Each structure stands twice: as C-alpha cells, then as structure tokens.
C-alpha cells in the first residue's frame, strides 16, 4: 500500500550483536539502536562523536560559537539519517564529510574576517607575543577563507588531508572516489592555496627570504 513508511523491524538482540561485530562499526550499531528508540544510544554517540565534530569545525571556522552551531547541525542531521541508515559507510566518515561541507558553506557565506580565537596558547595584557598571536590568527583566517574559495571537492579533500590529517585511502572512502583522484585533488588544492595566499604575503607578515 502506498504511503507506508519503511520501518526496520527489530532484530533479536543476539543477531544485532553478531551484525555489529561483523561490521566493526559500533557507531552504526548505536545509531540503529537510537532509531529503534534507545535514547541511551544517542548519549553514547554524542560522547563519542561530538568532540571530533567540534574540533573539526573549530579548526575550519576559528570561533567557538560557530563551531558549536555546526556541531549541533551535524548531529541533528545524523539523528534524521538514523531511520534510513544504510551500512555502506562508517558513521564517523559520514560525519567528517557532513561537518566539512557545513563549515565550508559557512566560510563561503562570511563577508568579513572573523577573529580566529582558536589559536592555541594563552595571551596576557602587555605580552609581546600578542602581536605574534594576532598575526597567526590572521594567517589562519586567511588560510581558511582561501580554502573555502577552492572548488568544492578540492576544498573537502584538502581539509580532510591537511587539516584533519586523514590518509588518502580514508579520504577516498569519505568522498567515494579513487585514491589517485584524492592525490590529484589535494595536490591541486594545495597549489591553489599557495597561489591565493602569496598575494597576501606581506599583509600576513611573511618577509621574503
């Protein structure tokens, strides 16, 4: 009959455990448990995944407030994908892609530079390193804005490779492309970033050697 929603029937617990062990993706099992009505599974997923998502967002956006917004949006999309979750990808790799795309979209929508308040280290008033820290913030902000100007696939590949530090095979799985394609995208993306930032070298405080 039309208009019938597809609801996965609950498998016996022993079958589910065997499936999880075979899949070696505990996150997928937790997600399926959440879809079946287990709220404790959601809490476990939040504990496991939200720090990674928040860190990834903070690296790209630089501000805590925006990173938290993106984290909330990414996790919301995960809950909504739960009922129809297909076990073709790992939950973490799916989240990497969703978070990166949300961050890059947010970066493209930025009109003005935003202070990059995620630079590691502490500053105190009168500290001579304040100038250095501010300069570093400006450089990181310029890098992320240049990243957002790249073509979408290049930007995603470069952010996953050089900012998240993932390997090419993992990036290939996330983007659903071949490893050679990843290498090509990252090489071209890095060259494009270097070209984009070279015009701002002096403004960013890089003296010619």
């Amino acid at each position, binding site marked *: 009959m039309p208009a019938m929603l597809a609801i996965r029937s609950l498998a016996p617990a022993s079958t589910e455990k065997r499936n999880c062990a075979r899949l070696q993706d505990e996150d997928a099992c937790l997600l399926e448990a959440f879809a079946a009505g287990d709220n404790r599974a*959601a809490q476990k997923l939040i504990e496991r995944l939200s720090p990674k998502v928040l860190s990834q967002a903070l690296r790209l956006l630089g501000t805590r407030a925006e990173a938290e917004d993106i984290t909330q949006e990414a996790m919301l999309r995960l*809950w909504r994908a739960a009922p129809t979750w297909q076990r073709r990808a790992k939950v973490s790799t799916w989240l990497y892609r969703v978070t990166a795309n949300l961050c890059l979209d947010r970066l493209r929508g930025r009109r003005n530079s935003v202070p990059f308040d995620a630079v590691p280290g502490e500053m105190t008033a009168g500290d001579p390193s304040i100038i250095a820290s501010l300069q570093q913030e400006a450089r990181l902000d310029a890098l992320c804005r240049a990243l957002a100007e790249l073509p979408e696939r290049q930007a995603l590949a470069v952010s996953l490779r050089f900012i998240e530090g993932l390997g090419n095979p993992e990036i290939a799985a996330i983007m659903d492309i071949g490893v050679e394609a990843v290498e090509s995208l990252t090489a071209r993306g890095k060259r494009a970033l270097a070209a984009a*930032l070279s015009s701002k070298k002096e403004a960013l405080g890089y003296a010619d050697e």
Partner: protein
Amino acid sequence: MQMNNDRLDTLFADLRSIEATPSDALTARLIADAKRESDQLAAKRERLADRPSGFSMRLLVEDILGLIGGWRPAFSMTASLFCGIWFGALGSDPAMLLPGLGLDRPTITLDLPENPSELIATPEGMTE
C-alpha cells in the same frame, strides 16, 4: 614570490593542533535534539501501529483516492467511464445517440421536385 610549502604546512599543523571539548551546555543541547528526534520517530511508529492490520474497505478507498489525487479526479474518471460504457453499448453509430438527444426528428422539411433540373434557376433571356 609564491607562498612556500613549508609555511603552508606550518599553518596546517597549527590548525591540526586545535582540539576542543564540548561544553556542558552544548552537550545538553545535543541530547535535547536527540530526544526530540527520537520522540518524533516514536510518534511515527505509533501512527503506523494504529492502522488496522486486517483488510478495511475504508482504508482501501482512501488509498485509491490518494493514488488518483482526490475526489475531483475520481469523479472525472467515473464520468469518463460511464460515457465510455454508454458509447460502447450503443455501438459505433453516433445516430443512435439522437433518440436520447431529441435530434432524430428533423425540424425543417423540404419538398424536393422529381426533376432536379427544376432546381436550377434560369435567368430571363438565357437559353440552356
């Protein structure tokens, strides 16, 4: 001069070193979102469970109407169906429709002469 790779790699390394821990407020928001989505899923499951499992003519009619697009298209299709049956039952001669429409009796009567040439008017002075 191009930005060299070392400087770019240094910037990337600085970004990679950034780590964050969710605050309690963020965690609470995430849990609240999960609870809300879970409640919506549960409500959907209950709506489906309330549907009768046995055969129901009312539900069958509702589903068919849903497929067709509503009552109006259903009436149009029904009217077309009856017209089709009517034409089919009366055969291919459209004149069979005339009795029902009252057009089987002519309204104008013409008395035609036996010699059709009498119909042709001959102007005065012309010979055939």
